[in-house]
């Protein structure tokens, strides 16, 4: 999964001389939280977030008269004054995993995508990431989730996949919880079918333990004394 496949290419951008007020209007109207600032040839100069804009706006606690006076003072300032210069950027050939780790570590909500010369190519936000997760988990397609407990030893996944394949069932996704119980793992195959009886029976016949995913969750909750 590469950034190039998941980034937004339909970009809403601004020049450095756009006023803060105009930028606020565009972001509200388009429903975006990150506005890349580019120069006249399209190279990335910085990024303005909705928080930058809000910080610059007068306090909503002010009386209307005072609010309007303050707003008049600041509304014509250009966005270059509040933008983050030289923001963190990524390349289109980065993977989604790179981006996920980067966003988590650097605590940013969106990353502009640039090419080697610094031209803006796209932007990848947490919303794009969420969409790609819905997509890889395949949960927008009809299916059922199984939860299989296996011993921590090699070849278990192959046996499970073989059984699913024998049943001619398509796999939407597989999640593995490595830390489950001591020496055990939990495998969650998402099967794109309504027909789970036979596959469940076969898994049981082959010695796998099927559990209710909820049971594990309930076991983790603080128990009443």
């Amino acid at each position: 999964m590469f950034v190039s496949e998941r980034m937004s290419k339909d970009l809403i951008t601004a020049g450095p001389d756009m006023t803060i007020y105009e930028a606020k209007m565009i972001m509200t109207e388009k429903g975006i939280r990150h506005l890349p600032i580019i120069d006249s040839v399209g190279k990335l100069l910085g990024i303005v977030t909705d928080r930058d804009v809000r910080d610059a706006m007068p306090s909503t606690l002010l009386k209307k008269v005072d609010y309007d006076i303050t707003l008049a003072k600041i509304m014509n300032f250009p966005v270059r004054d509040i933008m983050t210069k030289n923001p963190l950027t990524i390349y289109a050939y980065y993977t989604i995993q790179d981006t996920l780790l980067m966003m988590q570590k650097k605590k940013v909500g969106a990353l502009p995508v640039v090419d080697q010369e610094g031209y803006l190519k796209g932007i990848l936000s947490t919303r794009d990431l969420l969409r790609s997760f819905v997509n890889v988990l395949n949960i927008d397609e009809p299916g059922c989730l199984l939860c299989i407990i296996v011993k921590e030893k090699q070849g278990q996944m192959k046996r499970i996949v073989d059984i699913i394949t024998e049943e001619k069932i398509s796999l939407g996704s597989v999640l593995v919880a490595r830390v489950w119980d001591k020496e055990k793992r939990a495998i969650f195959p998402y099967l794109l079918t309504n027909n789970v009886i036979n596959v469940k029976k076969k898994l049981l016949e082959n010695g796998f333990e099927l559990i209710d995913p909820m049971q594990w969750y309930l076991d983790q909750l603080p128990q009443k004394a």
Partner: protein
Amino acid sequence: MAGYVDLGKIVIEKQENLMKRTGFVYDERFLLHQTGAYHPETSERLKAIHKGLENSGIIEKLTRVEAARANQRWIETVHNIRYILRFDEACISGFNEFEHPDNAICRDSFDTAFLAVGGVLKAIDAVMKGEVDNAFCAVRPPGHHAEVDKPMGFCYFNNVAIGARYLQKEYGVERVGIIDFDVHHGNGTQHIFDNDPTVFYYSIHEHPSFAYPGTGREFEVGIGEGEGYTVNSPVLPGRGDDEYKRLIMQDLVPAFKKFNPEFILLSAGFDAHESDMMSGTNLSTEGYDFISEVIMNLANRCANGRIVSVLEGGYNLDILPLLVENHIRFLADLK
């Protein structure tokens, strides 16, 4: 003094008539939809139901309603004509599945699906004409997953959705309430009436993060004019009677009292039972009784007792006949 005597008579007569006249739709032709040796939605399900009702003697107390092939124009009130033709062609061509391996078919599936719809429409006729008070339709293939132009989860034509449109167009019924207690969410029915404030869709089912088809979350409440006319109660796996009771009293009862349907259609699925391997919910036999009882009370209060209950899922052949029998006992006031 004569008045007292009359009053007494009325009371006695009423007690004798306490049992409701319940229609029963069943046809051996429903067995012709063959899904292969390895499919849970098998004709054995209907055979087991029929045998169970015979053995318990209940069948004697029901009014048989004959199914007849539905007129295609009623199916077209819900499904796309091209979809209907695709289904016909797949069956004629001798394919053994229709657009997904879940949807097993044979040459007779198309006609059987027409007959299943027709069975539901005949049951509706019988109730609307006062020949019976309510009815149970032991039909297959089931219907609630079927979308406007897509078969899903063993379903081809949405029997209940077509029934709702039929009630509105043929009998001028304004408000139809659908209660779907199959363990799976009735995505087809919900989507067909998403924008429609005249058909209320309530479904209680296993939580979509775990169970097919992955829809039916609490925040799906209808769209546009239909907003507020869809209510979903997802049940987490491992939960059973208590959760069902809580959700039904909290979500279904007040919504239906407010909506005040003139007719209630049921998507009756018996696969939420603790012994059914299709699901992870743990509804007991008594839990199913509770559902039937609440629905009967609601129907008596809002819809003049008018219910047509239509079989959807239920795959454990050892428990299915008993659950259907118990459900019918509530319909017929024999419980």
